[in-house]
């Protein structure tokens, strides 16, 4: 699962590890929800998936030679409410 997830590569991918939902964006990767790493084989499998995901994120960020201090977000425009 995590091997198909290329952090920051697109705006489309969503994967799940446990109840954690991981969303790919070009300027961020979001992890939402929760995950229980139980002390059993299932817990180990989830932990390894999480590890692979985070390793991929670290690798992608380290490979970015122009990594900014803080990512820049496009400011929302203000428009006249067409429905008012």
């Amino acid at each position: 699962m995590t091997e198909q997830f290329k952090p920051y590569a697109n705006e489309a991918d969503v994967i799940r590890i446990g109840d954690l939902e991981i969303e790919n964006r070009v300027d961020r990767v979001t992890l939402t929800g929760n995950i229980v790493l139980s002390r059993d084989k299932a817990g180990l499998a989830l932990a390894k998936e999480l590890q692979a995901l985070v390793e991929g994120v670290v690798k992608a960020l380290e490979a970015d030679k122009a990594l900014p201090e803080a990512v820049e977000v496009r400011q929302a425009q203000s428009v006249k409410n067409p429905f008012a």
Partner: protein
Amino acid sequence: MFRSFFFKKVLPAGPCHAKPSTGCGILRAMPRFPSFALPLPLLACLAASLALPAGAATQCPAHFAAGSAPVVTNPKLQARTQEVCFEAFAVLHSGISRTPLYSAEHLTRANLEAAQDLSRKDSFHPESSLPAQDRAELKDYARSGYDRGHMSPNADFATRSAQAESFSLANMVPQVHANNAGIWAGIEGATRQLALQEGELYVVSGPAFIGSDIKQIGRVLVPTHVWKVLYSPKQQRAGAYVVTNDETREYSSLSVADLEKMVGISLLPGLPQKVRDAGMELPKPVSPHDRKGKGKKGQGGQGGQPAEEEFTLKDFSRSILDAIGRAIKH
């Protein structure tokens, strides 16, 4: 086979676009073509639908309470709208905001119990059945800082195909992340829990665009509020959660009638006015530890606890409603 044949034969090109759907192929055609010979088991449904007050034209009445689709009452909202019917929910999409104006679903206990496992992989995608100039694209949301917030959430759906369809941008609005992952997720969880308890709920969710100026990202309008209407057939009651689209941890509880005034859409046109006026005691948004709302047990011990201190009910007083009413000049 019969369904698709029937559907293609009788439905002319109209304002509504239908996706291939499993549940309501024949039902779609019924309100418009009552004189067609229909298989016997459907005659009862036909009679029922004819007896009900008229909603907007829809090709997927099964997703709506009493089979009646919401009716847009603010004419400015009506421009460039198109219904999109999915397997397990329906949206009315606006080519002006490039968001849904509502997304409607019928939650049942059986479906929620079948929805225990979510797909491991999904994909946000533009809605290819909408005209290119009217639909949101992934790039509209890119680098905006906003989440693509589901109106009908993927965790509600029993099948992989219905879950996958819920990632259509026709079902999304730009939503502040803390809101989407916080109180909104809590409202979604509480909604599922109530549907599990009661057996079924009709749910309509959507954005509100209130005020003289609105934010826009790419070509997509950012709602000022998001709301969720719950109709409980068991209680014969309906009510609505309303939250501002920001980092709020407060929500308001409105009657359907008040929300209808606020958003300019008659949301439950098939229900008696007294149900729309009366409001409903809404369950508290669930805590993030149990936001799937499936009443999980044995995972950390915090599952299922109402987050009484986390999310609080705000008194949405008459005066605030009146101010909104004046602002939107009804």
